[in-house]
């Protein structure tokens, strides 16, 4: 199935000769490869087209331009019970051009990669930027990058998932659902795998040309139990298996079939679990639950675009604002709380070599000993922080948080991996349970909701256990915890040590208009919060 550069050139020639029936504007114009493994993004002909787009942009008045070409392949395999529901393979390829003219942005993209189309979208991006100058109150200024960077980067995978035969993948999933269905009371079980490989190249008008190959893999399953009288049903989702920036080895390591009976037994047990009594409890959150809370109440509100109001119409603003009032001053939580941003963590969903503005990211502090110290930034945003950086002796540079979900979308600020650092102790999930006299432990993530400034949160989970006298005494159901963010992190009493650190993550995190999705990991340790408000969600009328 792999097509060679010779095939590619042959097809290009055919297009040039006008042999495609539907006409040139329908053709993918020859720069085409099959839905297979030889991605042409790093091809000299593609590079020449990118340079052409840059040249058109510069000659049209752009002070800066960047061009992204991406070839993205993703595969889904889904089974329900003992039936394969679907196998799908999606392949998309195209180019996006961003221009900056007199401090105003413009963007255009196309899947038609001919010299004419590329020039047309560069001109369209210029038109956008020029039209936008009319309302410009403050021109965009970019923080510097080294420029003239050339390099490649690839996710640290062991096995390319697209090299594994579909029957092998199906067998893994059917073994998992079969194992779950053997547990009495299970009504249905589903399992799936999702794989993504994106090869993308970025060229900037300041001389950088970077090629990256990013892999992401997500195995998952869900089981549902129905009561005999059909008045109740309960499900368990495998949210403790995080998606990762890894290859097929992540599927094998997840051992779905081994875990399935446990998920099934939990679902059945939930049918007869005790409904929680609302009130205040000491709350122990497993990393498989806490990662999502960190995502919503720390990672999102410390995005600078939210703090400044850019997301006000959709994803919201932030309580971590205004910058002058909170930087180095806001007490986010107790001194146990140390949060870092990091786009280099191996195996994480956010791992990259460079962001979508050619910035090589660094690990940086967001919350230090409980105090908020910095936002996530892009090149445009970093210059807005110049006064603060000068005051505290930091360089005015982006933290490398620019990302676009595809060639068809403009890049903007997206979060890096944002993680809670382990404590300086040897505590684990089990040892922390042993220290709780009366409380609730939550495993896995469930329903989650947060307001538009990230104050009021309501989060649930997959499995809830009642703890008494240092021991789990039974399962609870209909549990959710509600909180106000600074109070919640201000109640952080204890955290686990390095060996309890787990990387959770989200495949599809939405933000921006038009909405875009990114993938990000959050590492954390089991954490104990004192006297959190627990509600019962089992309302009947």
């Amino acid at each position, binding site marked *: 199935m792999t097509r060679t550069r010779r095939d590619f050139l042959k097809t290009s020639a055919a297009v040039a000769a006008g042999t495609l029936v539907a006409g040139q504007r329908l053709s993918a114009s020859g720069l085409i490869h099959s839905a297979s493994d030889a991605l042409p993004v790093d091809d000299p002909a593609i590079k020449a087209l990118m340079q052409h787009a840059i040249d058109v942009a510069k000659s049209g008045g752009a002070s800066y331009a960047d061009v992204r070409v991406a070839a993205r392949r993703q595969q889904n395999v889904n089974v329900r019970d003992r039936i394969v529901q679907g196998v799908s393979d999606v392949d998309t390829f195209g180019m996006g051009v961003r221009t900056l003219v007199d401090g105003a942005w413009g963007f255009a993209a196309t899947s038609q990669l001919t010299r004419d189309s590329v020039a047309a979208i560069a001109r369209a991006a210029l038109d*956008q930027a020029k039209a936008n100058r009319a309302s410009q109150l403050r021109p965009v200024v970019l923080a510097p990058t080294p420029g003239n960077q050339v390099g490649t980067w690839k996710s640290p995978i062991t096995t390319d998932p697209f090299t594994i035969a579909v029957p092998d993948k199906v067998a893994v999933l059917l073994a998992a659902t079969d194992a779950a269905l053997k547990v009495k009371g299970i009504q249905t079980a589903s399992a799936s795998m999702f794989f993504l490989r994106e090869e993308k190249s970025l060229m900037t008008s300041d001389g950088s040309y970077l090629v990256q190959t990013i892999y992401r893999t997500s195995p998952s399953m869900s089981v549902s139990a129905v009561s005999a009288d059909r008045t109740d049903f309960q499900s368990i989702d495998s949210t403790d298996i995080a998606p990762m920036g890894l290859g097929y080895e992540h599927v094998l390591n997840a051992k779905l079939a081994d875990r399935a009976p446990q998920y099934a037994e939990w679902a059945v047990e939930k049918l007869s679990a005790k409904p929680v009594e609302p009130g205040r409890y000491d709350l122990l959150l497993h990393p498989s639950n806490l990662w999502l809370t960190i995502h919503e109440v720390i990672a999102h509100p410390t995005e600078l675009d939210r703090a400044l109001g850019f997301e006000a119409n959709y994803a919201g603003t932030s309580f971590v604002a205004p910058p002058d009032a909170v930087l180095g001053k806001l007490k986010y939580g107790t001194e146990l709380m140390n949060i870092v941003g990091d786009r280099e963590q191996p195996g994480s969903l956010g791992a990259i070599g460079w962001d979508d503005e050619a910035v090589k990211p660094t690990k940086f502090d967001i919350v230090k000993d409980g105090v908020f110290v910095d936002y996530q930034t892009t090149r445009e945003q970093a210059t807005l922080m110049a006064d603060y950086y000068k005051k505290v002796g930091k360089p005015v540079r982006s933290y490398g948080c620019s990302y676009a979900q595809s060639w068809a979308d403009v890049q903007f600020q997206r979060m890096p991996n944002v993680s809670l650092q382990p404590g300086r102790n040897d505590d684990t999930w089990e040892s922390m349970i042993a220290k709780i006299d009366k409380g609730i432990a939550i495993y896995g993530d469930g329903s989650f909701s947060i307001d538009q400034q990230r104050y009021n949160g309501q989060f649930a989970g997959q499995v809830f256990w009642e703890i008494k006298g240092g021991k789990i005494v039974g399962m609870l159901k209909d549990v959710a915890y509600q909180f106000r963010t600074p109070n919640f992190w201000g109640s952080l009493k204890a955290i686990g040590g390095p060996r309890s650190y787990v990387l959770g993550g989200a495949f599809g995190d*939405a933000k921006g208009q038009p909405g875009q999705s990114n993938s990000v990991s959050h590492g954390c340790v089991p954490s104990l919060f004192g006297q959190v408000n627990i509600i019962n969600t089992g309302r009947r009328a």
Partner: protein
Amino acid sequence: MSLYAPVNILSRAEAQDIAQRALKNSPADETRVNITSSARADTRFALNQVTTSGENRDTNVTITAFVGNRSASVSTNRLDDASLAAAAQQANEIAKLVPPNPERMPELSQQSYPAARDRVISLPSPAERAAAAKLVTELARANDLIATGFIECRASAVALANSKGLFAYDASANVTMTATVRSPDGTGSGWACSDGTTFADIDAKQVAATAVEKAKTSRSPVAIEPGRYTTILEPTAVGNLVQLIAGAMQARAADEGRSFFSKAGGGNKIGLKVVDERVTLTTDPDDAPSTTGGFDGSGLPLEKVTWIENGVVKHLNYDRFWAQKQGVQPTRVGGGFGARSLRMLGGTSSIPEMIRDTERGILVTRFWYIRSVDPRTILNTGLTRDGTFLIENGKVTRAIKNFRFNESPIFFLNNLLAMGSTIRINASEALGAGGAIYMPPIKVRDFTFSSLSDAV
């Protein structure tokens, strides 16, 4: 020159050409080809200026190969013969490796579709969009407020063909403009939306006026106790929650005991009254937002469906397999039911009348971050946003802090007090073009607000 002059989405003839080229090279027993061609133009503004704008277009072809009861799909946006043949070949190769699906339904033969409606497919230029944005930003600046917003314009064509001679095609356009205007001190926020089929439908002045007025009147909100309140929900807020019912109306889940629509002891709730008798919910392919695709994923022509009539469940969503198994007709509603053209019939009241008749209550502009809490009751949680007001003695008296709710549309549609006229709204969370549904404003009693939020 705009990329969208002309819009350049696929015509029927162009889609037929691609479909034929994809089908002719497919080695599978049966083959289905889905084609989506789309163009998008958008402008985003924040802090009273345009921050970015973009244009893109793309065409995707999905080839599904059926080998006996085995199937697999491959999608590509490369449209030359070689790439389509490669995709068809790959789908066939994968399909051969997949275990047979006993629930697989055979492909449909040629179907009869309503005559294509005459639609104007055009998208505005960057300058036109920037000018519309400026109407909002300038009014905000004139009132010492800060405007943020988004204009999105989409044109698309979809086509479906198969190796049994079926071909279906439809094209559409959707446009939306939303704005959130905030006070510089961060204590007030107002939101407004205008949604339509073409850019001419967008009323930017009205968006500006409404969002600015709400921002001004929502400043410095006071806290009131959470609890159960008589609540007036503007149409967007109604849509935010009522559309959640649609996602729960899957017949199979109901029949298997995994849904609110499951009946205790077995079966489902078709024929049972579940909400107030004034509630009727329908979907209709003739409603404008459903214009993309007058057919479902297998090629069945869509039809008007009444889901709940006078409070009684009339229909659940049966896919072809489950319908055959249960001995009923499949529901011709298409994929994504709930996101397209859901309509709740309205009443004779109006928001001013509802306010006038309220001794003490709450007025809600819209909801945010709505997530399922308990599928057994369609209980969801979420928050009010961008304009929440206290009503006292028949008047809106002050802005109040936002609330988190824990509610089910099933519960509050049983507590219905009044309904106004149904209008087209955009109730999707991301507020993109094409998310429109039709909802009335309603007044309900005992809406459950469970906690306060400090967010503005």
